[in-house]
């Protein structure tokens, strides 16, 4: 798939969504939010690209994905590979995976969102998953060394895929400071707001 997802669509119809998924309070599960916030700090991109840290939205993913022509998801993945392993998945691989029984209504996630949108005739035409195998997802904010190293590569992988799609990116000469509030030290300095 080397053609941009929007084919010959005029620019006004292009919309690319980059979303980071995961729980920032649970160690490496916060990788997705960490990567997209660093991407935002490092690159400038056109207004038709949206970059969002969505946490763990379940089906609340729908509003962010429905209008996008192309979607890049960054998340941790379950895989029997060493922590920090980085993988790129494409739409066909994601949709081919079998699904199990729902128990909690909040089980649905990315795959269900995409299938649902496909049924409505909406949804992105190109979907990529940038996935990293986590080391530890336990209740303590902050990434492990393995995940942090992979996060660096993941930021560049997102940039590379966007460029491949034809998105003009500008690397900031002076990167902004990424707001990783969950890694902030305990008590803030200064006055009450």
């Amino acid at each position: 798939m080397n053609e941009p997802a929007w084919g010959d669509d005029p620019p006004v119809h292009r919309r690319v969504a980059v979303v980071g998924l995961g729980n920032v309070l649970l160690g490496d599960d916060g990788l997705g939010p960490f990567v997209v916030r660093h991407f935002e700090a490092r690159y400038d991109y056109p207004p038709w690209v949206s970059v969002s840290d969505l946490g763990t939205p379940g089906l609340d993913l729908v509003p962010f994905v429905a209008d996008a022509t192309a979607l890049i998801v960054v998340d941790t993945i379950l895989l029997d590979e060493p922590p920090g392993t980085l993988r790129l998945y494409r739409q066909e691989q994601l949709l081919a995976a079998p699904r199990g029984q729902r128990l909690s209504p909040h089980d649905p996630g990315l795959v269900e969102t995409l299938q649902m949108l496909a049924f409505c005739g909406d949804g992105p035409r190109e979907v990529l998953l940038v996935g990293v195998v986590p080391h530890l997802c336990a209740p303590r904010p902050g990434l492990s060394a393995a995940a942090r190293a992979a996060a660096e590569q993941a930021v560049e992988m997102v940039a590379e895929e966007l460029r491949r799609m034809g998105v003009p990116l500008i690397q900031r000469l002076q990167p902004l400071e990424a707001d990783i509030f969950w890694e902030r030290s305990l008590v803030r300095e200064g006055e009450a707001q």
Partner: protein
Amino acid sequence: MSKRIVIDPITRIEGHLRIDVEVEQGAVKDAWSSGQMWRGIEPILKGRDPRDAWLFTQRICGVCTTVHAITSVRAVENALGIEVPLNAQYIRNIIIAAHCLHDHIVHFYQLSALDWVDVVSALKADPDKTAALAESLSAWPRNSKHEMRAVKAKLAEFVERGQLGIFANGYWGHPAMKLPPEVNLLAVAHYLQALEYQRIANQVVALLGSKTPNIQNLAVGGVANAINLDNPATLNMDKLYKIKGLLEQAAAFVQQVYLVDLAAVAAMYADWLPYGKGVTNYLAVPDLPLDRAGKVFDLPGGTIFDANLSAVQEIKSFDDPYFRDNVSESIARAWYDGDWERHPWEEETVPRYTDYDPNGRYSWVKAPRFQGKPMQVGPLAQVLVGYALGHEPIKRWADVVLETAGTLAKAKLSPAILHSTLGRHAARGIRAAVMAELALKHWQLLVENIGKGDTEIFTPWDYPKGEIRGFGFHEAPRGTLSHWVVIRDGAIANYQAVVPSTWNAGPRDAKGQKGPYEASLVGNPIADPERPLEVLRTVHSFDPCLACAIHTLDPEGRELARVRTL
């Protein structure tokens, strides 16, 4: 002979609720509800700045972000003893109402309708008859023959191509599925429309919260939405009218589609009305404050014990000692160190995992109690409390649902049927209809207040030295949510969140009293133990949310949860 059914998430992806039921002679004899993952979020907050607490608590759960953010700022404001400006109350209230509309619509259509609707059966429907039926029930303009034919064609194409993925987890052809094909087709049509309207409701949250799902506009003491009607970068008339238009669209869907579908499902599953009652002690808190201090509200709160509506006791303010002094949590049957039942300010969260033992400890969920009693929380609790207190909009919309369902079922339905699995669904729809109305009312209040020249959005404050304590509550889509904070010299010394799904999914306590999920499952019929649809119906009716604390994707598709019969 009895048989044990276990519905158990076997991977750590998302599913963290395990339900065990003992089945004898085709019905549930006993049940156990177990949270399979330690949340342990509270210790993360210790030592942090209370101004940051809401940023962290809105990450507890990815679906309930907004509700934890709002409850957290209320708890810290309560500890500081500060009032917030009227504009801040109204803006928070509109966010609360819009988020609730989004959440209730998604819950019914996308998350639980398939427990009652057989999608495959919809293929046998006559679309013209479907449209005729729909038009006889509601004035909704999108129930036409054209619309129903198009949905049926789309569904047929999907089935033919083997792409029924979204519906792949349904129990097609299960003996407990009873809707006629036309009603199933109507439900599929509205399932698709619901996707549009939940997005519309979500746009309101995004416009005011600046981002969703994790809103950015809160502050301890108010909101960060600068108001200047002439400035394109702030909250201005253009944005306000956009919000009004979106709320009106969501309200029309709730009142003309969601509520009518609920009445139809309840009427056609009238045989299910006796099931799922469970715990009939109810707790709801007041919400949508109309004043700065939180003493006057548009949504009522209170307690009901043993289904006795005439003895309802009201919860009257953000500082009401009746709520503050009566909440406790028991860990007698949960995997924590000790066997105490304590007030949230006095709790500690020290995990101590032992094996799953239904006669001993079997859950990570604590067992919250009010005056030592298990309580059911959620839309049903609020609707019953409101009904008992004579709250006009709740009574009016409840009567609409009961009358519509009664006409279809050809029976007189009284509010007593609401103590049930279907009653929880009906109450959620009633609450959504009330919320839709109140969202527009609070929009009006905000616009009028700004019109008077009031643009205040924030109350300045300072930390006192020494120790202060506070609590904040919010009637969230899944029910009563409370946060409890102890602040010492400007840093968090203790923080506890007592969440709706803890009230409902909690285990037994030291006295052996069952939690609401457990009690509501007892007596449910089980037609086929290999496919326990009935268990899912009752558990889903609570809108459980234990599952969203962690979210690792499984791109190679392993089993999400499985059903085992022993």
